[in-house]
């Protein structure tokens, strides 16, 4: 096969090119020809196709994501050191520390090969955090699977869990929390959203800029092989089944295998490089491999770069330039280094036994020029590859059946005599049961900084060992609420993540997201997406905290059936001393008073009760009240600061009943609870009204705490007392549950399904 050089392309304008197979539309291909003034070479076509894919270019979501920027005020932005558009958002948390965090989806690869798909999902997000100059400190994962008892869930879930654990554990990053949710719509479309959080000194922030003409471009980490060639444009594109070839090669598996050991060494190597200040710019190699790294680095810097592709260390024989540029081999990074620092750079890499190769240099030509065997195979304006991809205004239409969906079905409610059994049944239901079977496969202790981890409402790590400053994180979403009302549903996801951070005693400061939806070519899905973006952005304005970054995953659907719209929201909070953290379990002090904060309304739309008992999804989700959430967070912060709160647990799916069961089991302590005689017992126990938290308050602080709530206008009701001697949860007029009975119900569900 002759090499398709730029010269060759100029002389053969009419050669037919497989752009459709690479996921490009006719008009997109024509635009490339217009930009270049000729047909693209094979290598250029590979670059454009992968960079202009939905996954890399955000072409369907861009017009909507702009709403985040538009609604973020200067005040909200005040603590942000980097935001949307960088590898990850960065927030100033005080004491000279900057914290960076981001979530990313690896959904379809995790369906194809659950272990490796999930593992490389973790690996990818960790490199994003490294590319900001930070030390990765912890990971979290939000997972969605088909029905828990579906045969394919038995294949996918254990593989995904082992992959998240296998990679994260070997990397030495504690897994501090996340979610596992089952719903039949995720069969064939599991969601694997991984989050990583890292920290650095404020002055060490590295942005991916390739400035400084003459600076060297160094590729380091693993060798480049035939992994996931075309994976991004084909896998994350509309068909999932295209001809997975670069030009001229037989079908290859679009799966990447992760090597966490190489990544661990790469982390230590990078951190030493950062510490020695010998890196001008750095970029991870993610979905679009070298295509992405070189075009983004060049576009962000002085505008030009020359890359000698022959120097890229290869793992496979006979790779073409197009294949090298689109390879998704894992555990690779690309750095820009001053010529005088190259030797020092190489010495650090040698110490860690990391392969490092100079592959090019920064130029001021405004062109990205790539040569192969001395011939030019790529000559493009880098911004056209990295940032000027197509932008689509997809049709949007509220689904015709949305109105019907929002009419609440008439669901028979339980008799008073049935409530006791219902508490136990709900505690053991698929979505409410203990996640221990999953989380016990994750190392939560490594690095010695984990203060809270699953099953706490949020994960918390210590950042500064001297001052005790730390951060708390929570990832949340409820696809059922979002299906009923994506605007309100996204707000509810934000509200819950915010509340989960607040109940730990931390102050929520920033938001990230991972938007998982069906096909953007379906106007109904686009409506869900638009509504969710608006709900999330408007919610952030109400709370006064910014969205610092995010990720969009479309095409999560089989045939015409899309997944539940699932905007996973991550909230980061700051706590100035982790010793003040509020645990989830009760029983730290004998005789604590249990107090319920917030209002309970008759709200069962999208509830777990409707799902478990009636298999029903209808009506409207609970109302989100973000002003109330803010007040709750302030009360909890005061409570934490002044030692007034000894435990706190947020009320969400499953309502008060589930919160009581969990607080007792996590704290291994019983309680005596009495319900409000003036309100329906079923509503009190199982309604999912938002903006509610259950707190345990030392008896000596009870009056001071409730006076504070009353003064600030936060409704509260005394629920009962913690009873360490009882070994049981007693709910007056409903029944007594021994902790053993509750534990069996709560903890045996997942082992029975997956062991």
């Amino acid at each position, binding site marked *: 096969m002759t090499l398709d050089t730029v010269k060759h392309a100029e002389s053969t304008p009419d050669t037919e090119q497989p752009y459709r197979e690479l996921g490009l539309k006719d008009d997109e291909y024509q635009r490339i020809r217009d930009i270049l003034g000729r047909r693209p070479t094979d290598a250029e076509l590979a670059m454009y196709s992968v960079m202009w894919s939905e996954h890399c270019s955000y072409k369907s979501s861009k017009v909507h994501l702009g709403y985040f920027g538009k609604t973020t005020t200067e005040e909200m932005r005040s603590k942000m050191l980097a935001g949307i558009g960088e590898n990850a958002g960065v927030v100033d948390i005080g004491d000279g520390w900057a914290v960076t965090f981001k979530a990313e989806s690896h959904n379809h690869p995790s369906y194809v*090969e659950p272990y490796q798909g999930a593992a490389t999902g973790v690996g990818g997000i960790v490199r994003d955090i490294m590319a900001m100059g930070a030390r990765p400190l912890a990971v979290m994962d939000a997972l969605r699977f088909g029905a828990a008892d579906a045969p394919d869930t038995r294949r996918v879930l254990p593989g995904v869990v082992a992959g998240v654990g296998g990679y994260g554990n070997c990397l030495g990053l504690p897994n501090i929390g996340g979610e596992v949710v089952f719903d039949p719509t995720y069969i064939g479309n599991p969601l694997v959203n991984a989050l990583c959080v890292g920290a650095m000194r404020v002055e060490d922030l590295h942005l991916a800029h390739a400035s400084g003409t003459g600076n060297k471009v160094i590729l380091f980490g*693993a060798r480049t092989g035939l*992994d996931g060639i075309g994976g991004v444009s084909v896998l994350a594109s509309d068909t999932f089944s295209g001809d997975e070839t670069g030009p001229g090669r037989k079908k290859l*598996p679009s799966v990447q295998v992760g*090597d966490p*050991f190489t990544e661990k060494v790469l982390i230590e190597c990078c951190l030493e490089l950062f510490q020695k200040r010998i890196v001008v710019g750095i970029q991870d190699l993610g979905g679009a491999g070298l295509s992405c790294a070189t075009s983004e680095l060049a576009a962000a810097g002085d505008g030009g770069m020359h890359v000698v592709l022959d120097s890229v260390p290869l793992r496979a024989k006979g790779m073409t330039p197009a294949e090298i540029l689109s390879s998704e081999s894992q555990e690779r990074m690309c750095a820009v280094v001053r010529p005088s620092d190259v030797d020092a750079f190489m010495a650090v890499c040698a110490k860690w036994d990391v392969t490092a190769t100079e592959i090019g240099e920064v130029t001021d030509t405004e062109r990205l020029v790539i040569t192969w065997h001395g011939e030019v195979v790529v000559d493009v304006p880098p911004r056209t590859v990295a940032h000027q991809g197509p932008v689509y205004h997809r049709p949007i239409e509220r689904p015709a059946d949305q109105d019907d969906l929002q009419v609440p079905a008439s669901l028979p409610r339980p008799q008073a005599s049935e409530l006791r059994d219902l508490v136990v049944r709900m505690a053991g239901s698929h979505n409410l049961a203990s996640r221990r079977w999953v989380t016990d496969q994750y190392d939560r202790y490594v690095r010695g900084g984990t203060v809270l981890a699953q099953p706490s409402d949020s994960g918390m790590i210590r950042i500064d060992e001297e001052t005790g400053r730390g951060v708390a994180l929570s990832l949340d979403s409820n696809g059922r609420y979002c299906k009923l009302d994506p605007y309100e549903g996204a707000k509810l996801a934000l509200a819950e993540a915010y509340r989960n951070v607040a109940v730990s005693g931390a102050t929520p400061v920033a938001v990230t997201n991972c938007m998982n939806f069906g096909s953007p070519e379906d106007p109904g899905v686009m409506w869900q997406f638009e509504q969710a973006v608006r709900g999330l952005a408007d919610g952030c304005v109400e709370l006064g905290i910014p969205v610092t970054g995010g990720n969009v995953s479309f095409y999560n659907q089989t045939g015409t059936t899309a997944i539940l719209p699932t905007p996973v929201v991550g909230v980061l909070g700051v706590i100035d001393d982790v010793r003040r953290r509020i645990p989830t379990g009760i029983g730290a002090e004998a005789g604590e008073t249990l107090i319920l904060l917030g209002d309970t309304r008759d709200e069962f739309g999208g509830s777990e009760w409707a799902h478990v008992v009636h298999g029903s999804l209808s009506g409207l989700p609970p109302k989100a009240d973000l002003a109330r959430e803010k007040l709750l967070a302030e009360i909890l912060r005061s409570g934490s600061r002044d030692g007034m709160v000894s435990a706190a647990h947020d009320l969400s799916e499953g309502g008060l009943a589930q919160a009581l069961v969990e607080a007792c089991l996590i704290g291994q302590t019983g309680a005596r609870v009495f319900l409000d005689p003036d309100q329906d017992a079923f509503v009190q126990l199982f309604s999912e009204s938002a903006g509610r938290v259950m707190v345990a308050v030392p008896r000596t602080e009870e009056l001071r705490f409730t006076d504070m709530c009353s003064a600030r206008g936060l409704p509260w009701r005394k629920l009962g007392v913690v009873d360490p001697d009882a070994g049981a949860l007693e709910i007056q007029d409903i029944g007594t549950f021994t902790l053993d009975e509750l534990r069996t119900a709560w903890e045996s569900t997942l082992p029975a399904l997956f062991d």
Partner: protein
Amino acid sequence: MARVVVDVMPKPEILDPQGQAVAKALPRLGFQGVTEVRQGKRFELEVDDDVDDETLTKIASGLLANTVIEDFTVRRVES
């Protein structure tokens, strides 16, 4: 009864971190000249004589190997 050996190897184009780790260790131990190591699995099955090759292939492709990332070979050996 017959003995069947199923060898499962990572596909040639798939990264094999295990093999790579061994290959990197050998020179440190003073063994030169080994340019590549790939690590796989070997299964030994005792099967009744009426189990045909097609069934064995199904066993290998359906359970023993993950055909997304692994190749396999099935052979009958003297028991």
